[in-house]
């Protein structure tokens, strides 16, 4: 019982030990890896000075905004593609093609169209998260039971009711899976986009700036913060998911 509780800690503690050893004995240059102490003190300084908070919030805001836009546009498109063969046939190629383009390759284009402010970052994360949501919502519909649609047909359920009362809940478990992937992706895209032009606030920007001047303690602190944000978003989503799609797999 107690041993099982310890399991999640074994690997992190080993990593910490390994980290301490390689930095203590200078197996790697201090320019690349700080000691755990240096890292923690840099992190604490950033946290207690309040400096990190603005950056976390800026990144979080862009991530969530992009994700929200992706949900609003992507989920309905995916549901319609899953439901109607004609819509599927007309969009399938385009979606698959756009999905094959690495989203970051489009960033210069988005800069041109949306400018160098928040809009281009939000738009790019919405773009890539949206494509993930389209595909997952579509799979969700395809995974649903055809018999439920037939049952609805015997009761002459209208198209709109079929969509909202059957197809949507039917696809919801898969949509949530897609949302979890999409929000992580949204964060990745935002952090990468922040490393380029036109940002003062944002974790990506700070990671880049700290790296340019070899402040590795700070750099790792911001990387760590980005990790924490991703972790919390993912875990938070899992919590909501369990509560909302309680029937999943049953």
């Amino acid at each position, binding site marked *: 019982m107690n041993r099982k509780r310890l399991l999640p800690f074994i690997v992190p503690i080993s990593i910490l030990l390994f980290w301490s050893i390689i930095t203590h004995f200078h197996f790697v240059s201090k320019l690349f890896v700080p000691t755990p102490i240096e890292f923690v003190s840099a992190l604490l300084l950033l946290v207690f000075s309040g400096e990190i908070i603005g950056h976390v919030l800026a990144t979080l805001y862009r991530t969530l905004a992009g994700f929200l836009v992706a949900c609003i546009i992507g989920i309905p498109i995916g549901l319609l593609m899953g439901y109607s063969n004609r819509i599927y046939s007309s969009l399938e190629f385009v979606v698959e093609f756009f999905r094959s383009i690495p989203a970051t390759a489009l960033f210069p284009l988005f800069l041109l169209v949306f400018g160098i402010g928040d809009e281009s970052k939000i738009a790019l994360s919405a773009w890539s998260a949206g494509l993930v949501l389209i595909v997952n919502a579509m799979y969700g519909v395809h995974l649903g*039971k055809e018999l*439920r649609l037939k049952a609805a*047909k*015997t*009761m*002459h359920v*209208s198209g709109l009711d079929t969509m909202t*009362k059957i197809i949507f809940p039917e696809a919801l478990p898969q949509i949530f899976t897609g949302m979890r992937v999409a929000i992580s992706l949204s964060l990745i895209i935002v952090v990468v986009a922040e490393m380029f032009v036109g940002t003062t606030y944002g974790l990506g920007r700070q990671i880049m700036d700290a790296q340019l001047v070899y402040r590795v303690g700070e750099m790792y602190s911001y990387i760590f913060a980005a990790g924490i944000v991703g972790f919390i978003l993912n875990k938070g989503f899992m919590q909501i998911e369990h509560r909302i*799609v309680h*029937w999943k797999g049953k």
Partner: protein
Amino acid sequence: MDFIKVDRVGKTFHKQGGQPLCVLDDISLRIQKGEFVTFFGPNGSGKTTLLNILAGIELSTMGMVRVEGKPPGHAKVGFVFQNYNESMMPWRTAIENVLFPLEILHVSSPQATRIAENLLKKVGLLEHKEKYFYELSGGQKQLVAICRAYAYNPDLLIMDEPFSSLDYSTTRKMEMYLLNIWKETKKTTLFVSHDVDEAIFLADKIIVLSRLPARVKEIISINLPRPRKLSMLSTQAFFRIRQKVLRMFENE
């Protein structure tokens, strides 16, 4: 006019890359309004397929089907599917499942709740009404599926082995309940059963289907008096019909 008219209907499934499978072969039937008809036949003989065609959720590949003089799919059909897990909604509670057809019919919410609760009460599920569908036992799920079909107030009630998961006494109780409602409402009912006694006990006529591809082996009118009573199961008349049905499968 016949309520249901099935004329030389055939159904062949074409699987990609596989052999075409002929499931229904030259089926002809006449069913009158208000009749209680049971279907009896071996597994995989096409009973579900035939009912799907009558409900308008699958197309026949040959022949003609008319329900109330129109192609299938127009009449109000209450369908209790054989596979209740895939036809009901696990994201809804028991009562919400029964409320679904009432929402579709735009029945006002207090009235709908009253109807749904009444139906659930009659099958003894009122205390379980707030349970999610997946939290119910197989038999309870089946009872909810039956309630949903009734809640729709259909013109045609189709029940595909609706009692297959119920225990002995619940089955007998549901049979009597079904007959009571039928007596009051005279809804045309099509009922598939693998239990000869049940198929005879409920029916005005029993349609016996052959092995694949299904043909109508025989249509037997059941002249037992109504209301039916469980004591009839041991009468001579009942026994004669039973023998007649079972003998059809003896030398196969």
